[in-house]
């Protein structure tokens, strides 16, 4: 038995334990030398990325992984389950975490010079929380990790703009706590009626008591709780401030991951804790979700047009993009579901790239108001090109990732016979053009008399590498969407909707 064999069986738990341990050891590493923190985080994130890739590969080739903590078999013990859905989301978390980690070295040095050690410590704990939420197969354990990820996110946001960051973080704390209470109540109700906390076990126990009012209340609580967590339209109030006032690297991380993991959790609860028949036919929750999502898509885009702070604009755009994910999920047919799930990947890539660009522009010029962006195209050509690619992808130009998911969502809407959602997607794409055009216009077509004596002053290499990599992936997955769709999303959508069985 080699050393690697020893580890392979335990990869599911190590993906959570390693960032947890590394997060708590960061203060000691930083105490030896503050500069070592970044290398420490890189090492950890790289290890996590390798482990999550290996997990996803194992799931694709040989089926779902079950891991029993402490050797206690479920439903008594806590079980970690990795199937296609969370294997896929974990890989996104690890990858975006690594990208933001690389980027953070310069931006944190400038924005939070005195808080390097706490930032990296909390950064790793946030990754732990998100990873744990995704990987666990036990709903109470899920709640614990939800709290870890929320608390660390509050702390990261509070580190941002002096004053505003704290207020934004406090608003988020109130809303997040309300959401977490709803979710905890839901978990409590389900535990009361089934006596189990294991997701797979619960899915077997619940169908016989679907007419029980407690189960209906639990479903309602979960949907409201997760709607707050993902920032679905009427419950989005915390999101713009939180994204705007967080430090650049934290905005990119939180915008790229938090809401996506919330969407993952919603999918998991809708289709794995409850069954598709219950959510789609018996309570029609999926249909309600599509309408809420359609509203979010339009309103988010409209509100984004009204913003002049680039980070706030991107935050409102996030609200509309979350709508796409939930629209696909709510359509509840295989094509729509694939579009929604693919959009989890796509939106992480695009939004993370856009927030990184906003951070890089702020790093070099200190400007966040997009009306002052004149001449940036000449000053920071690579950064602005990344912005162009990510924004085109957001609009949904063919050849970029945004196109593929919008295409699938539109096809899914047609399959479901809901033509109105096709119109919603089209209108939202046009609105996307409007708000991104204002930025393009300022960057490349700003007043020439100001542009002439601008020197090229590009962001540092450590910022450029992750941004360019994300932009390249935006195009790569746009051209080769076949890979995620064929290997992961198609079997996954079938399995979630109960048409096929997970391999």
């Amino acid at each position, binding site marked *: 038995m080699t050393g690697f064999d*020893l*580890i392979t069986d*335990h990869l599911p*738990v190590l993906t959570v*334990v390693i960032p*947890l*341990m590394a997060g*708590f*050891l*960061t*203060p*000691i590493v930083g*105490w030896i030398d503050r500069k070592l923190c970044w290398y420490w985080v890189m090492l950890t994130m790289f290890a996590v990325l390798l482990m999550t890739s290996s997990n996803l590969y194992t799931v694709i080739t040989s089926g779902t992984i079950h*891991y*029993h*903590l*402490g*050797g206690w078999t479920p439903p008594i013990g806590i079980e970690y389950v990795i199937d296609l859905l969370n294997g896929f989301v974990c890989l996104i978390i690890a990858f975006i975490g690594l990208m933001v980690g690389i980027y953070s070295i310069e931006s944190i040095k400038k924005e939070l010079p005195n808080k390097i050690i706490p930032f990296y410590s909390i950064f790793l704990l946030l990754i732990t929380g998100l990873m744990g939420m995704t990987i666990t197969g036990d709903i109470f354990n899920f709640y614990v990790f939800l709290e870890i990820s929320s608390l660390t996110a509050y702390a990261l946001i509070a580190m941002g703009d002096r004053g505003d960051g704290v207020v934004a973080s406090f608003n988020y704390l109130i809303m997040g706590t309300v959401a977490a209470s709803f979710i905890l109540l839901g978990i409590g109700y389900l535990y009361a009626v089934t006596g189990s906390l294991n997701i797979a076990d619960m899915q077997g126990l619940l169908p016989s008591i679907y007419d029980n009012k407690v189960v209906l209340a639990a479903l309602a609580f979960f949907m409201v709780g997760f709607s707050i967590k993902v920032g679905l339209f009427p419950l989005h109030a915390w999101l713009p401030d939180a994204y705007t006032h967080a430090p650049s690297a934290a905005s990119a991380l939180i915008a790229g991951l938090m809401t996506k993991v919330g969407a993952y959790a919603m999918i998991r609860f809708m289709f794995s804790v409850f069954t598709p028949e219950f959510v789609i036919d018996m309570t029609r929750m999926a249909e309600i979700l599509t309408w809420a999502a359609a509203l979010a898509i339009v309103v988010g885009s409209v509100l984004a047009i009204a913003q002049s702070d680039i980070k706030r604009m991107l935050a409102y755009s996030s609200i509309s993009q979350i709508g796409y994910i939930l629209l696909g999920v709510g359509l509840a047919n295989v094509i729509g579901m694939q579009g929604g799930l693919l959009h989890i990947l796509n939106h992480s890539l695009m939004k993370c790239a856009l927030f990184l660009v906003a951070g890089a522009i702020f790093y070099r010029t200190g400007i966040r108001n997009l009306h002052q962006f004149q001449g940036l195209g000449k000053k920071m050509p690579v950064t602005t090109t990344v912005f162009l690619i990510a924004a085109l992808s957001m609009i949904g130009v063919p050849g970029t990732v945004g196109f593929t998911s919008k295409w699938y969502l539109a096809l899914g809407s047609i399959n479901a016979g809901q033509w109105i959602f096709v119109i919603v997607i089209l209108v939202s794409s046009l609105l996307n053009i409007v708000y991104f055009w204002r930025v393009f216009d300022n960057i490349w077509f700003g007043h020439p008399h100001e542009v002439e004596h601008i020197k090229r002053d590009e962001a540092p290499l450590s910022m450029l590498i992750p941004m360019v990599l994300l932009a390249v992936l935006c195009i790569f997955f746009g051209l080769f969407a076949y890979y995620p769709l064929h290997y992961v999303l198609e079997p996954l959508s079938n399995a979630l909707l109960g048409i096929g069985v997970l391999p």
Partner: protein
Amino acid sequence: MSGIQESIVIRTVVRIMVPFIQIFALYVIMHGASGPGGGFQGGVIFGAGIILYAMIYGHKEGKQRMSDKLNRILSSSGVAIFAVTGISCLVFGGMFLQYGVVPLLPDNPAVVSRLLIDVVEIGIGITVLAVMISLFFDVSPPETDEEELPASEEAGQ
């Protein structure tokens, strides 16, 4: 220095209380495996003892007993103890936190399991107490003017 801090009764009682609070905390931590209590509760009680001391004797005294550096090391090492215990179970071929597989006493895995749960509880307790204390020092207002302020008031009079 406020009135409460000057009171000789409170200062004396606190000085006598603190060791007992800490012994009780250790009892709660060690009792965690077999009864109510555990690392978290015990850590909170232990931290509360030191916080009580710092409240009455002032931040300076408190920080002398529990410096920031010590705090940072304790908060990290507690979790490290937990994780190392869990991972040592992996090394001996068990699942994460499957204590019974660690061959400390080959004939009696149940006893090993109980011992290692205690180790984990101690780790959790150390982290909780360190975090409690650092929260207290972070949230409470700085007391740099502890000696200077009364002097300046006298000068004003």
